[in-house]
């Protein structure tokens, strides 16, 4: 079935006009030996023995321990700070306030609007007002208690709509509206006039915590040559470097950032290392001693970036047969106190921009209007978290589709069949999807594997006493590869050595997703050697080329392409040598299985290592460099029309669950998640991404919420902030389809973020199907499900 789909799609692709061909790296049609196989994870032996060193596992090398004094007020002026007593405490080496920041007193992944140390005002509970470095963590804690700060509280804002209101207190001088964007296609009024049914709904989602298990750690030390070295688990070493340098007032080349293997990131370790990296560097700068800042779990929950909360208003119109005629939406995207990764980066980067583009769902709708607002409040700040704006709007549009189907009396699957994107569809931004569109295939494959029709027919009361009802749910999704900004280039270098071993230089980080396994696979495939022959260099800004951040489901695709280009450059040099050694023209040479041979006479061959040694001895190129940038994104600033992202991954999820209508408790029974991934470079690692992503989406649906009351986090721990355990997650069946992406390495598209996106609405839809209760304000914990069932007039009786 898979093969048939591929062939069908390929034929269709050939008939369509395409753009961006100059970005095409031809990898299609190559018969693969290494890419496409489930090569074991490179770091597994270290992980199962406990030998892998995470940030906190590095031995104490005379570190000072850094701590941050945090604001207890959500919004206040700082009248004065007295650090005298803290400085006098034995073991305290430095107590720093705003005037001690040597350079720019601000950091941020996009806009440096967050003070390294707040000087005049604080904007959320957790804002840093002083830094301490001491001989022990305990002393540093004590010192924090001795700092006296006099605050003058200001009125605080906790709802983006209040913050947008005229006359609202300004959180930042520039105003509270950080960004507003608009997407307009066709004529929504005409579209609604054509509709037989119009529905209007509002959905609301809270702040979420990444809850990566490894707490953040950073180490900063001023080296003898004056270079500031910052080390830690992080997703974006280059972004960290870009911030540390101006904060210290030194050039970028005077800062060196080394990444340490991460114990999970999920987007959260994109900007928290900037925060503590800058602060540790300032302390190291002042003390001349190495400084370590380790965040405690409570600090992580209070201080670091979260998934953006959104209030989403939707209006959708459809004909009786389910054909969508119009979609209108408004997004209030709450940024919180600081810009972090939220704001727009032209043309199509930014949380609200991304949410806006995705909001109408993966459906053909002729008339669309969406307004998106990104607004400062006095809450913690929104950053990147697996899906960056997309999970929120999927929760809205996928529930809306089910509500619409129910209103029209057609099935949840049929309404999606009717409207889903196919090859040649135009999105709400007017982008024509001209290649690699496997959405409908995921729907059909998922329905078949899940046995949707049978399961649907078998739903209903589970027990005689009518306390439990079984239901099924479906949701679809789409997600971009790369981040929609102009500067999304990615560099790699491949160094072949005279013994045939290879070093791969890449700035893409390993956080558990498998980059350090998949990227060497791509390199080995291209050079015709084994993955074990390639060692990937731990990202270090002094060693690896600029690769951008490890975010946006961009690593395999963008870095994969850069690696292919780098490998090809050095391979050319090797084939040139082999050609002379074998007296065979280079066009006839094939590199595969550590051999280079004559395609027309495979017996005529040389070992890869022998060719490498001769190439080296001949003084020829041994290093290849590659740089790949996706086709330039476009999105008109006034109409929101254009091609914001170069390719999309598609997915359909189906779930079966049981709701206890007396208690509101939900138990998942079965789950199938189908994806069009373009090409699975490492199927087992890919399955792992899917299974883990679904579990994360489950947490979003049923239990996760950073509970805030007047800006105070009520559940700053894993006791209060629940994530799914092994008992909450069902046996998730991943289903991988491959509709090749002609822009991707061997056809691959991004997959890191897609898996959790449809999971949340699929579960919410199944809850509604089982119990009649529709939860429009997440999470659907037992209490909300209980009341949603009552609001719906009780569970269906049939």
């Amino acid at each position, binding site marked *: 079935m898979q093969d048939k789909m591929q062939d069908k799609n390929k034929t269709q692709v050939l008939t369509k006009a395409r753009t961006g061909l100059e970005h095409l790296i031809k990898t299609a049609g190559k018969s693969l030996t290494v890419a496409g196989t489930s090569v074991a994870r490179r770091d*597994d032996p270290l*992980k199962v023995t*406990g030998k892998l060193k995470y940030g906190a596992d590095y031995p104490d090398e005379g570190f000072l321990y850094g701590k941050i004094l945090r604001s207890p007020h959500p919004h206040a002026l700082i009248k004065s700070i007295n650090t005298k007593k803290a400085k006098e405490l034995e073991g305290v080496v430095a107590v720093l306030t705003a005037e001690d920041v040597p350079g720019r007193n601000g950091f941020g992944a996009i806009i440096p609007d967050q003070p390294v140390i707040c000087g005049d005002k604080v904007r959320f509970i957790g804002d840093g007002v002083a830094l301490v470095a001491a001989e022990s963590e305990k002393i540093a804690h004590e010192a924090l208690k001795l700092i006296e700060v006099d605050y003058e509280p200001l009125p605080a804002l906790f709802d983006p709509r209040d913050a947008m209101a005229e006359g609202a207190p300004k959180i930042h001088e520039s105003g509270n509206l950080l960004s507003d964007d608009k997407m307009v296609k066709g004529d929504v009024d005409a579209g609604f006039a054509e509709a037989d049914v119009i529905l209007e709904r509002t959905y609301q989602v809270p702040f979420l915590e990444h809850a990566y298990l490894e707490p953040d750690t950073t180490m900063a030390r001023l080296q003898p040559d004056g270079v500031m070295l910052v080390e830690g688990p992080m997703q974006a070493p280059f972004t960290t470097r870009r911030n540390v340098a101006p904060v210290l007032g030194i050039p970028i080349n005077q800062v060196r950032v080394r990444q340490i293997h991460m114990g999970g990131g999920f987007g959260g370790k994109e900007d928290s290392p900037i925060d503590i990296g800058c602060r540790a560097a300032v302390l190291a700068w002042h003390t001349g001693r190495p400084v370590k800042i380790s965040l405690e*779990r409570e600090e992580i929950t209070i201080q670091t970036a979260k998934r953006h909360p959104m209030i989403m208003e939707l209006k959708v119109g459809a004909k009786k047969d389910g054909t969508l005629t119009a979609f209108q939406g408004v997004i209030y995207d709450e940024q919180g106190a600081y810009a972090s990764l939220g704001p727009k980066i032209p043309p199509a980067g930014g949380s609200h921009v991304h949410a806006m583009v995705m909001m109408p769902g993966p459906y053909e709708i002729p008339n669309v209007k969406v307004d998106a607002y990104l607004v400062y409040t006095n809450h913690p700040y929104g950053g990147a978290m697996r899906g960056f704006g997309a999970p929120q709007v999927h929760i809205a549009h996928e529930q809306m589709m089910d509500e619409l189907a129910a209103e029209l009396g057609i099935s949840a699957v049929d309404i999606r069949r009717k409207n889903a994107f196919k090859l040649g569809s135009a999105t709400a931004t007017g982008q024509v999807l001209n290649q690699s569109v496997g959405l409908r295939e995921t729907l059909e494959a998922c329905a078949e594997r899940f046995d949707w029709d049978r399961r649907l027919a078998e739903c209903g009361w589970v027990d005689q006493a009518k306390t439990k009802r079984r239901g099924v749910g479906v949701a679809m999704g789409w997600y971009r590869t790369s981040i929609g900004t102009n500067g999304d280039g990615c560099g790699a270098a491949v160094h072949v050595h005279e013994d045939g071993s290879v070093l791969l230089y890449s700035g893409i980080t390993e956080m558990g997703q498998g980059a350090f396994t998949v990227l060497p696979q791509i390199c080995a495939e291209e050079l015709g050697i084994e993955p074990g022959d390639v060692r990937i260099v731990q990202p270090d800004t002094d060693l690896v080329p600029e690769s951008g951040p490890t975010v946006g489901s961009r690593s395999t695709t963008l870095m994969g392409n850069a690696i292919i280009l780098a490998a090809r450059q050095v391979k050319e040099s090797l084939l040139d040598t082999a050609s002379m050694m074998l007296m065979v023209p280079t066009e006839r040479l094939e590199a595969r299985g550590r051999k280079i041979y004559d395609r027309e006479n495979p017996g005529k061959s040389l070992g890869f290592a022998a060719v490498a040694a001769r190439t080296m001895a001949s003084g020829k190129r041994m290093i290849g460099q590659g740089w790949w940038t996706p086709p330039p994104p476009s999105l008109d600033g006034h109409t929101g029309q254009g091609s914001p992202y170069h390719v999309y991954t598609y997915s359909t999820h189906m779930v079966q669950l049981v709701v206890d209508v007396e208690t509101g408790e939900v138990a998942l029974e079965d789950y199938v998640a189908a994806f069009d991934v373009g090409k699975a470079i490492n199927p*087992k690692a890919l399955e*792992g991404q899917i299974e883990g992503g679904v579990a994360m989406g489950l947490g979003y649906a049923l239990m996760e919420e950073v509970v805030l009351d007047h800006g105070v986090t009520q559940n700053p721990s894993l006791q209060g902030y629940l994530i799914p355990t092994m008992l909450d997650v069902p046996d998730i069946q991943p289903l991988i389809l491959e509709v090749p992406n002609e822009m991707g390495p061997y056809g691959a598209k991004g997959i890191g973020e897609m898996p959790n996106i449809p999971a949340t609405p699929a579960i919410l839809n199944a809850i509604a199907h089982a119990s009649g209760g529709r939860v429009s304000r997440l999470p659907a914990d037992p209490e909300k499900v209980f009341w949603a069932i009552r609001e719906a007039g009780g569970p269906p009786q049939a």
Partner: protein
Amino acid sequence: MSTMELSFKLNGRALTLNVAPDTLMVDLLREDLGLTGTKAGCREGECGACTILVDGTPMNSCLMPALKVQGREITTIEGLEKADGSLEVLQEAFMGEGASQCGFCTPGMILTATALLKQNPDPDEGEIRQALSGVLCRCTGYRKIVQAVKAAAKARA
């Protein structure tokens, strides 16, 4: 602060140390003994990354005063590797099934599963999930961990 003498068996070797009474087991292992395979994820007994075996029973070392292990037999992840460098069946199974992603929960998972398989050599899926539910994983969705435990049980049968 005065210290107290503590004797216990760690990964098969008898040890006697002087420890401050407020020392937590996780810190004794990680900081004093350099055994960083035991992870500290939350320091509140929730995540299970700090799981060690105390006389064969999985326990959170982050809530445990070190003095509590007086006379006990402690196993950490470092204790599973045999002298010849070969690994336990469970460790092999975790690699074979792709059960580690970031790997931060892996030591706690493997030790908890070790205790399970010792008590119940052929657990069904429900028993595996129940036994391992105290260890959190944010990466894998648990499926491949369950498969690894099943595979290890099968390999040992």
